[in-house]
């Protein structure tokens, strides 16, 4: 555990006039899992992109196993040194199968000099099994859910036999049980001497998995400590530069049944679901939907949000049938949707301002839906950016792509909420958002409830569902298997129910 395999000294990086990193030191020891933490925009991804050779540092030295890495090192040079990266955007090729994506990294199996697809697939299956990933080797990566893609990308990084693996928010949309599996497989590789740099916003994971933590704030290192010698609260203080405000006692007084039913879903069925699904949501209620990867929670959100068309079934909002599968009409009827994948949520090359006001029904002021006056928009956009704490401040004319991942998510979230929707469909709405901002966003959810909005919250973050939802549907294998009332909502309880452990009296027929 002594010798550092990776050493970073005095790292600095500017974007235009903006300091993304300043004088950052970081070391990774052999076989260590080192968590890299910090607020949205703290500079974590920037540090990682510099390591990967994707962008160049301004100052500082990087040593891998004592060997200096050149400032102009290319991604290929870095890979040769034994570093592997799994970025927020994964870097998989959607048009290729899982096996081929793995083969891109480790090469195809050959038989008499020709590519043997059978062997390549067999090996891919072995690699996936090593990491505990249950996806078909023949599936196109483009058809996988974000969660499954993460597992494939992790598998690929591990399979290269790299000595240092950098994971940038790979767990952002992993439910707790899947995270446990991922953690197990990371430990397997750790025993072989692989070191990990692990970026996450879920602090529980740090205490479960990591050996040490380093915290960045505004591009500077504020602390490095062994996990065993610190506490959750101390880490939060490092991250935020202050204590976390107690999550203003969530007021879940809006009892279901007292308020009128707003959303009625009847026998909804699509390819991603095993059986028809029906439920109701009252005005001012948050209905949580949770389950493991592939359990159908994301599919329900996609159907209600307009991203997919159901084969059968209806949904009514205040008695009127919802035109599922036609997003513009859904938006027109007061449905807002935060997609589970950030790639479906915003236009990266367009300005932050323009992303706040994308479609006709989402103008800066509702009185004139057609004319857009940039300077008037700028005022509204700046106000919104401030409200949702999008940083850096006052830069709404920058392209969205210049924001850190979590800040992009805040823009998408803000746009959905400011439309004052009657139905808000959320799919992992706070993925990649830091601990402090997440509480704020939850506060905004409560605010919209007061105006009678109904919220469907599908999330892989069981803690989020447990703390926010009034009622939760637990899904397994494409079916709703349980409905938990408010007083039974704990993250552990949701995880157990999602797994269908015996004490949760799992039904027999889902053992497929």
């Amino acid at each position: 555990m002594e010798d550092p395999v990776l050493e970073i000294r005095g790292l600095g990086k500017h974007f235009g006039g903006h300091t993304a990193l300043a004088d950052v030191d970081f070391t990774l020891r052999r076989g260590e899992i080192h968590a890299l933490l910090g607020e949205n925009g703290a500079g974590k991804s920037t540090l990682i992109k510099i390591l990967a050779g994707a962008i160049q540092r301004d100052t500082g030295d990087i040593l891998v196993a004592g060997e200096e890495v050149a400032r102009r090192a290319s991604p290929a040079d870095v890979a040769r040194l034994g570093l592997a990266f799994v970025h927020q955007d994964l870097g998989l090729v959607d048009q290729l199968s899982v096996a081929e994506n793995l083969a891109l990294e480790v090469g195809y199996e050959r038989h008499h000099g020709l590519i043997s697809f059978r062997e390549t697939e067999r090996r891919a299956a072995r690699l996936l099994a090593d990491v505990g990933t249950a996806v078909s080797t023949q599936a196109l990566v483009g058809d996988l859910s974000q969660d499954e893609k993460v597992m494939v990308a992790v598998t690929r990084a591990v399979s290269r036999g790299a000595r240092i693996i950098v994971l940038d928010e790979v767990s952002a949309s992993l439910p707790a049980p899947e995270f446990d599996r991922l953690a197990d497989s990371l430990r397997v590789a750790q025993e072989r001497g692989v070191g990990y740099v692990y970026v996450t916003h879920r602090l529980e994971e740090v205490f479960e998995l990591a050996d040490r933590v380093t915290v960045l704030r505004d591009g500077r290192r504020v602390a490095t400590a062994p996990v065993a010698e610190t506490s959750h609260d101390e880490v939060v203080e490092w991250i935020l530069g202050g204590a976390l405000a107690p999550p203003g006692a969530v007021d879940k007084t809006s009892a279901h049944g007292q308020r009128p039913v707003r959303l009625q879903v009847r026998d909804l069925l699509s390819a991603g679901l095993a059986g028809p699904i029906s439920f109701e949501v009252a005005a001012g209620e948050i209905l949580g939907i949770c389950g493991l990867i592939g359990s159908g929670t994301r599919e329900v959100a996609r159907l209600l949000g307009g991203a997919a068309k159901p084969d059968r079934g209806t949904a009514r909002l205040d008695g009127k049938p919802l035109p599922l599968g036609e997003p513009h009409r859904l938006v027109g009827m007061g449905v807002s949707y935060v997609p589970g994948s950030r790639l479906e949520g915003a236009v990266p090359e367009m300005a932050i301002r323009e992303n706040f006001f994308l479609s006709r029904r989402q103008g800066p002021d509702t009185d004139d839906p057609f004319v857009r006056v940039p300077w008037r928009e700028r005022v509204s956009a700046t106000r919104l950016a401030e409200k949702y704490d999008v940083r850096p401040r006052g830069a709404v004319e920058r392209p969205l792509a210049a924001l850190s991942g979590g800040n992009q998510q805040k823009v998408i979230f803000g746009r959905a909420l400011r439309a004052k929707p009657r139905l808000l469909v959320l799919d992992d709405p706070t993925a990649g958002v830091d601990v402090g901002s997440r509480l704020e966003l939850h506060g905004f959810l409560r605010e919209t409830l007061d105006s009678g909005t109904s919220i469907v919250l599908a999330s892989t973050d069981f803690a989020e569902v447990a703390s926010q939802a009034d009622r939760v549907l637990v899904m397994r294998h494409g079916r709703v298997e349980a409905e938990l009332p408010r007083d039974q909502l704990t993250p552990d309880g949701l995880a157990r129910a999602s797994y269908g452990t015996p004490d949760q009296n799992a039904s027999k027929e889902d053992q497929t």
Partner: protein
Amino acid sequence: MSPTSTESQAPANSEDADQVRGGLGHVVRSVMYKYALVAVLLAVIGLFSTVNPDVFPTFANAQTIASTQSTIALLALAAMLPLIVGHIDISIGFQFGLAQGLCAYLIVNMGTSAILAVGAVLAVGLLVGLLNGVLVAKVKLDSFIVTLAVGILVLGATQWLTGDVTISGQMPAWFLSLGRANVAGIPLPFIYVVLACAALWLTLEYTAWGRSCYATGGNPRAALLAGVRTERVTIQAFLLAGLLSAISGCLSVMILGASSPTIGLGALLPAFAGAFLGATSIRPGRYNAIGTLIAVYLVAVGITGLQQLGAASYVQQLFNGGALLIAVALARFAATRRSGT
């Protein structure tokens, strides 16, 4: 803003201060990128004015360039619209040829009144645009292939109609004067172009429709989920491209007093060069109307200046291609500088 700490205010403020400090250089540079094309245009005009003071910097020369390039400029605006929504329409050159041939054919060979003829040409333009748009947006075919096929079909129709020869003959004087008259010394065709450019600039930049177009081109999936009617916007872009090509064809007949079987193809490449080149300026990285207009006239001024110095006619293609390559390479360089690599 952050309810969590008072300390987190401080870094946020110093962040702003950073921006102001590093900001000035940043602003200067971004203004430079924005107006680079205008600066080059002025430089080129200055250069030819000094080298060739008797011929180049004359009012008559300016009038000629302004008026002869007007059809290309309209066509470049037509090329720009489908590009904005993320597609390409290479049929516009052929559509231009059809509009030209049909307009002259109706007036000269059929004796149709000029107003009716223009109306018919515009209707045909919209129809072809609709066909392109529906095939691309609804049937989800690749726009390059669709518009290539439709373009060839249109070319065939043109040849069938015109017999592949020049059509010239009696045309109403008022019709011709629409293409040849000047108002206060400014050629009418140039005025149409400026009007079309202004209208497009305003709708694209200052209306929800324009936002929808750019969003559809930038990320169709995100645009759709945010409530943009991406299919409809796409069809509208192709419709407008068809309409503009048709107008350009009619204008060409007004200017020339005839149709020519070869002119359509020759117009295609400069039009696209203008649209691509224009995307490097005014709103860098984004197809835009004013940039397109400036680009078309930049190329035209350069070519005219060279030819007046005695350059051979192939200089036109060399200059066109060269300017486009240099401009996109510079834009690429600027973009990587901006993103800090």
